[in-house]
Structure formats: structure tokens, C-alpha cells
């Protein structure tokens, strides 16, 4: 067995109400590591042969919660959630911060495979090797905060009853869904700690489709033994030393972005991306710090960065709203993208999506889409159940968000996410509404635009990413560079927070991997032989897609139309993405990734990597192209 792994996964069949342990194969772990990579491998092995027919919200989908060998060791604990995505119909490695991954590893598991569907709402309680599927009817329908309160009480009481001499039991770590996940909203998240979420992918809906309200885990063992603990400690110290010098992230997190990404780099969504510039000083980080942050440093396990803050609205009509910072993504998407430029309005909106278990990015994206249609007279007050969806009105946006979570009225349509809503509504209106949908492969684009060229994403970041609009997994060339999607595959497969790898020398994470697992790993090996396999499998499953929609590289490896409209305001007014340059870069990317001119992984590429079955599955797509 490789060091640093617990060595087994927990498999839970909710239809049968049974659980078992699944051992991990060393060779698979060497190639796919954990988290996102292992998710792609497991999903491909189990569902690949019938991928196009698997409805992500049917019991046959598989929901995965996977750690990696570095979880708990590398500063900043996370867990990777995956499965067939109800947004892209491919596979997203969607990670969420917190202690869940650490607790799971301390309980003796590297991850959880959930199959089937329960008859009635359940939650999973894991205490080391004791696993129970428990009734969750008292939790169903409850929001994030209620769910955590009730579950914390129930689990601690149970533990106390069972182990009365232990002393005070701490809360188990929990992942849960809110009402949005229960109602199969495609933009629902798997959440933790009130305000943390595995957002991209829509796995909250998958969890809801399985009637799985929550998972609680208490692991009382140590982390799986590392090969060279002294070296691990040294590397942790090296990381912390660098991080401690970074005042920006430690003090403000990404909270300075809500003002600066717009004002300085013109790459922030403003009113559904009609603009990417604003200079609203009311939205400055000083305002957040002074008016709403009640806790300046909030961290997940082992994290020196503490980019999170706790925010509470103290005055006005949104008094009592609680959330984290919000971080830049939610600042932008539930702020300027909706024409909201006050910390109070923004915190309120973030607390609404947290409580309902919705993704702040995807929800901000679809709300912005709807508000632009209202602005243009395409959607009227009548159609919006009487709501006047004016830019900047946080109360009305909050009301529409609730409709989405409960699939009420127009919310039922918007609960499908921006892409699917645009198609459905377009059909009804006999209009092409996709120009107003700022998304890629069914996933709303993260809050970093490409038009000004001043923020980090490359012009093909979203167009060819195997995770669509996901701003945490952007594609770039060279394939072995820092801006490559293969770099993100390392973070998401070793499973830790990539914020703690900013400013760290590039070779450190490979040394860290070796110190934990005992296995040497060169960068060349990672990029050329290992991460590339995950990328190819993700690409294969993305292109196979189905059943409700499929992506064609020719028409879908593109940027949203809005990114070709010139920026209308700000210092970069007139700038836009150059379509010819994008097309050329997409071609270059295909070549570098070993894909044919139609964007399909080549037979030779896949065979060289030992992915013969993926090659066979893609034959029919190649035939369609020729």
C-alpha cells in the first residue's frame, strides 16, 4: 500500500441500504492520485460504457466524495465532490474547503462512493469504521443553518450516548444540501460550514436526487501515516513562511476584488457582463471590513492564509444576514453583476444562496441573465410572477432566488441554469437567447472576464476547459505550464486549497507528494503521463455527454458571444476578445492535447496512455465528424 492513503473507500448503496469497503489499487492511485483524477477514473470505469444514457439525476449516477493523499497534510483542507454533472453532463472535480476530508481520512477512508437512491430522506453518519444510514426526515426542507444546528446536536448526543466516558465530543464534519438540492435545482451545491460550497457541477442536485441530505463524519484516528513526516513538517513550514508574508490574502482574502477587479482590470461581471468595469467605491473592501466583517481571520484545517472572514449585516433592512466575506466570486456575481454595490445588499444575497444551498456563481449568473432579459423587455413583470427585476434591488433578487430554490413559477425555468433556461425560453419566445447566456458547456463563467486581457484567464481558458466555465480550472498553454489545466488537476487530485500554493516554488508540491507517499514524482511525469490521463477521460466524458444535451467542439469550444462585444466603458473601453486569435489558439490547444482537428482525443493519444476503452467509445463521435 502506498503511504499517505487510508487505503480504502466507503461504498454506500442507498437503494439497497448497504455499505461496504472498497480497496484501492496502487497503480490506479499512482496515475490518478485521488480527488478529481480518481473521480474521472471511477466514473469512467463504472459508467463509461453507457455514459450518454446516464441521466445525472437518476439513481444510476454515482456521487463521489474523494480526498487525496495530501489532504490534511498540505495546508488548507478540502474534499473533492464529483459524479456525472447535471450542468455539463461531463465530470467536474468540485472541491470544497473544511474539515470533512481530514475527518474522513482520520476515520480510515480516502473517500465515499454513493450509488442508488434512498426511499426516503437519509443522512450518513460515519464514526471511524461504523457507518450508518440514518433517517433525515427531520432535516429535509431545512436550510443550511438549521441543518447544521440540528445535525450537530443529534450527532453529538448520539456519540455521547455511545461513548459516555470519552469526554466532550466535538461536532463531526458535515457536508449537506439545502432546499435547492432537494428540489433538484441544477445549480445546487454540496455545502459545508454555512458558507462553503462545492459549487461547480451542480452536485447538490445529484445528492438531492439520491435523497441524501447530509454526511457527517467523525474520525478519531491519526491521518494516514506519511512516508517522511519530518520532511512534511519542513515543507509545511516553508509554505507558511511564504504565506505569512502575504498581507493581501491574509487580511482581505479575495474581498478586495469586488472593487478592484472591476475598477482596475475591467474583468468583473457587471449587469450580466454588459460591462466589466465599475468604479463604485461603495463596494470597496474597506467598506466590507469596517461595516460587516465581525471576524477577520477564518480558516479551514491547517490553513495559514485565512482568506475567509465572517460577515454580519448590522443595520438596515438586511439586518441579521450572515455569510462569509463574501469571497470575490460571490461579491461580483451577487453584487455588480446584479447592479448591487453595497456590502449589505451583497452579504444579504450571499446569505440567501448559502441558506438555500445554491451556487453563488451560477445563481448570480442566471439572475443576471433574467434581469437583462427584463431590462430588454424580453421578460416582463407578468412572466416573472409580478417581480420587477430591476438592477440593484437585492430584495427582489432575493425573492427570485427563493423561487429558484423551490422551483416556484418562473423559478422552475431558472432552476435549470442559464444555458438550459436560455434554450427553453428561447424556444417559447422564438428568439435566440444564447447571446445573453454567459456560460461555457452549461456552466456559468467564473467572475473573471477575458476581454480586457488584464486579469488571469487566457482567451481559451473557458472555451476548451474540460470543466467549462469553472474559473478554478482554466485551460492554457503550454500544457506543462503554471496556467495549464493539468496544474489544477494536481491541486484537485492531491486535494488541498490551491490558495496555499500561490507564490510557492513550483517543485514544492511534487516534493510534498513524495514526502507523504514515498513515491518520487517529477513534473515531467505528472504533466506527460499522469494528469493528462485525467484530462483525456474528462474530455471524453464531456464530449459523450447526454442525455439532454451534447457539446460539439466546433460550436461549443468557443467563448460566450458576449465576450466578442467590445467593452462599453472604463479604461479598456473597446477591447474585446479577438475571434480569429481565439480560433487559432483553440487549434493549438487541440494539437498540444493530442486531439484531432475536430477536438476529439486522437486514437494514438489515447492508446499511448493506455486508454483503449475511451478510444473505442469516441469512435462514434469521430465517425459523426467525418
Amino acid at each position: 500500500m502506498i503511504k499517505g492513503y487510508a487505503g480504502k473507500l466507503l461504498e454506500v448503496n442507498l437503494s439497497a441500504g448497504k455499505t461496504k469497503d472498497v480497496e484501492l489499487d496502487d497503480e490506479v492511485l499512482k496515475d490518478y492520485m485521488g480527488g478529481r483524477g480518481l473521480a474521472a477514473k471511477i466514473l469512467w470505469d463504472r459508467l463509461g460504457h453507457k455514459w450518454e444514457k446516464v441521466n445525472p439525476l437518476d439513481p444510476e449516477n454515482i456521487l463521489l466524495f474523494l480526498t487525496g493523499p495530501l489532504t490534511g497534510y498540505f495546508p488548507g483542507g478540502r474534499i473533492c465532490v464529483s459524479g456525472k454533472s447535471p450542468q455539463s453532463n461531463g465530470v467536474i472535480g468540485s472541491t470544497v474547503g473544511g474539515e470533512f476530508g481530514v475527518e474522513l481520512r482520520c476515520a480510515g477512508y480516502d473517500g465515499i462512493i454513493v450509488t442508488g437512491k434512498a426511499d426516503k430522506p437519509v443522512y450518513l453518519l460515519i464514526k471511524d469504521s461504523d457507518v450508518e444510514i440514518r433517517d433525515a426526515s427531520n432535516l429535509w426542507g431545512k436550510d443550511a443553518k438549521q441543518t447544521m444546528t440540528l445535525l450537530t446536536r443529534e450527532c453529538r448526543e448520539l456519540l455521547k450516548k455511545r461513548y459516555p466516558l470519552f469526554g466532550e465530543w466535538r461536532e463531526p464534519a458535515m457536508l449537506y444540501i439545502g432546499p435547492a438540492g432537494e428540489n433538484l435545482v441544477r445549480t445546487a451545491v454540496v455545502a459545508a460550514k454555512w458558507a462553503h460550497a462545492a459549487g461547480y457541477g451542480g452536485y447538490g442536485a445529484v445528492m438531492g436526487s439520491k435523497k441524501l441530505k447530509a454526511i457527517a463524519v467523525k474520525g478519531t484516528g491519526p491521518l494516514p501515516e506519511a512516508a517522511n513526516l519530518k520532511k512534511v513538517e519542513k515543507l509545511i513550514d516553508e509554505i507558511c513562511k511564504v504565506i505569512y508574508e502575504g498581507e493581501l490574502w491574509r487580511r482581505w482574502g479575495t474581498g478586495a476584488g469586488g472593487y478592484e477587479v472591476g475598477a482596475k482590470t475591467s474583468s468583473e461581471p457587471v449587469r450580466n457582463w454588459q460591462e466589466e468595469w465599475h468604479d463604485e467605491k461603495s463596494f470597496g473592501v474597506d467598506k466590507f471590513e469596517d461595516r460587516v466583517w465581525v471576524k477577520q481571520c477564518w480558516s479551514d484545517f491547517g490553513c495559514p492564509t485565512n482568506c475567509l472572514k465572517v460577515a454580519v449585516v448590522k443595520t438596515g433592512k438586511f439586518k441579521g444576514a450572515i455569510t462569509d466575506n463574501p469571497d470575490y466570486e460571490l461579491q461580483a456575481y451577487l453584487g455588480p453583476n446584479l447592479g448591487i454595490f453595497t456590502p449589505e445588499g451583497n452579504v444579504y444575497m450571499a446569505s440567501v444562496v448559502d441558506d438555500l444551498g445554491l451556487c453563488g456563481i451560477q445563481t448570480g449568473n442566471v439572475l443576471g441573465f433574467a434581469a437583462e432579459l427584463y431590462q430588454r423587455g424580453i421578460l416582463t413583470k407578468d412572466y416573472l410572477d409580478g417581480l420587477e427585476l430591476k438592477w440593484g434591488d437585492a430584495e427582489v433578487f432575493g425573492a427570485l432566488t427563493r423561487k429558484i430554490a423551490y422551483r416556484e413559477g418562473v423559478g422552475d425555468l431558472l432552476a435549470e441554469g442559464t444555458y438550459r433556461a436560455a434554450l427553453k425560453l428561447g424556444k417559447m419566445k422564438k428568439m435566440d437567447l444564447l447571446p445573453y447566456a454567459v456560460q461555457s458547456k452549461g456552466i456559468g463563467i467564473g467572475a473573471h472576464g477575458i476581454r480586457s486581457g488584464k486579469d488571469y484567464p487566457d482567451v481559451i481558458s473557458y472555451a476548451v476547459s474540460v470543466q467549462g466555465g469553472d474559473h478554478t480550472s482554466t485551460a492554457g498553454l503550454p500544457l506543462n505550464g503554471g496556467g495549464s489545466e493539468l496544474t489544477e488537476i494536481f491541486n484537485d487530485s492531491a486535494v488541498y486549497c490551491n490558495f496555499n500554493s500561490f507564490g510557492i516554488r513550483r517543485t514544492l508540491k511534487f516534493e510534498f507528494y513524495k514526502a507523504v507517499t514515498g513515491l518520487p514524482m517529477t513534473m515531467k511525469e505528472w504533466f506527460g503521463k499522469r494528469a493528462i490521463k485525467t484530462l483525456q477521460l474528462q474530455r471524453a466524458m464531456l464530449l459523450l455527454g447526454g442525455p439532454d444535451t451534447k457539446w460539439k467542439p466546433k460550436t461549443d469550444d468557443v467563448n460566450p458571444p458576449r465576450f466578442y462585444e467590445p467593452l462599453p466603458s472604463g479604461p479598456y473601453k473597446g477591447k474585446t476578445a479577438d475571434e480569429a486569435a481565439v480560433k487559432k489558439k483553440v487549434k493549438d490547444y487541440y494539437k498540444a492535447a493530442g486531439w484531432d482537428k475536430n477536438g476529439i482525443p486522437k486514437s494514438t493519444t489515447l492508446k499511448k496512455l493506455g486508454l483503449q476503452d475511451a478510444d473505442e467509445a469516441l469512435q462514434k463521435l469521430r465517425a459523426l465528424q467525418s
Partner: protein
Amino acid sequence: MKKKKEPIWIAREFTKCSGCRKCEIACSLSHEKSIWPEASRVRIFMLVPGAEFPHLCAQCEDYPCVKACPVNALSTSEYTGAVLVDSKACTACGKCITACPGRIPHMHPTEKRVLICDLCDGNPQCVKVCREGGWNVFKTVTRRNRAYELYARKPEEVTRDLCAKFYGEKGEEFV
């Protein structure tokens, strides 16, 4: 001649706690030679998100835990003021936990003995990492005549107070 050290105390400011658990990592690395959160003598409770705080021995003046031990497995260090556990003598009966006003001691997850902060023989590792990171929840101070038992409180009590402070009127309902 080596100067005799004064007993120490770990002063604590709960509202600054980020919940990063670096104290648990340092404690378990130091005492157990592994990262082992449940075997850490200092444990971060997060009964409510945002209201994290470290739960660790407060070294009450009258040491009720020491008095309660039926097998004399607990003693106090003259040198640091810490409660010391004689691991071999301890029977894991739990009487010290009941005697503690904050129910702070807890059992070692795999061995039959109780875990209580030993102040790392005068150089607490939790304090070191917390200060290195600038959170400064902890500070090592010399032990003087103070009401240390005020800090020996049950997790729910501390959480309620922190929730009231951070979240206002309805904060305590989250506990």
C-alpha cells in the same frame, strides 16, 4: 545556576480564533508524532461556524480534576503549573472530566488514558504556531493569582457567548 522558571499560563482570546487548527496539528505532532486532531490536548470546537475556539486545560487554582482522581494518576507540575497525567496509572475512569467545570479532559482515542494539556514542559507548541501565524489567540504569560477557572467552561457555554457577540440576538439559537 539555572534560574527556576515561574509557572506559566496560556492566556487566550477566543474571539480571534480563525479555526485553522494549527494548534491541534502542533500539539499532536509534538505529543503523538503524527497529525491527529482527536488526540490533541487542545481541541477546536466549531459547534457553530464562525464561533470556533480552543478548548484546553485552564489550570484552575484548586485543580478539581487532580482531587477527583481515585488512583492518584494526576498531579501538578511545580515547574509549570500543568496537570500531569501518569499514563500507566490512569484507568480512563472519566472522574476528572466530571470534576472539571469545563469538561475539558478527554480520552485518548486508542489508549486507555486521559489527555490533559501538559503545557509542553513550559514551551507550549500551540502558542508558538498561533503566534507565528499572527492570530495571537494564545499568549504564554507567567502564572499569577487570577480566576483561571473562568476559562474552564463547557463548549456549549463558550459557543453561546461567542454567537451572542458575533451574531447578535438570535445567535444563541444556532447552538
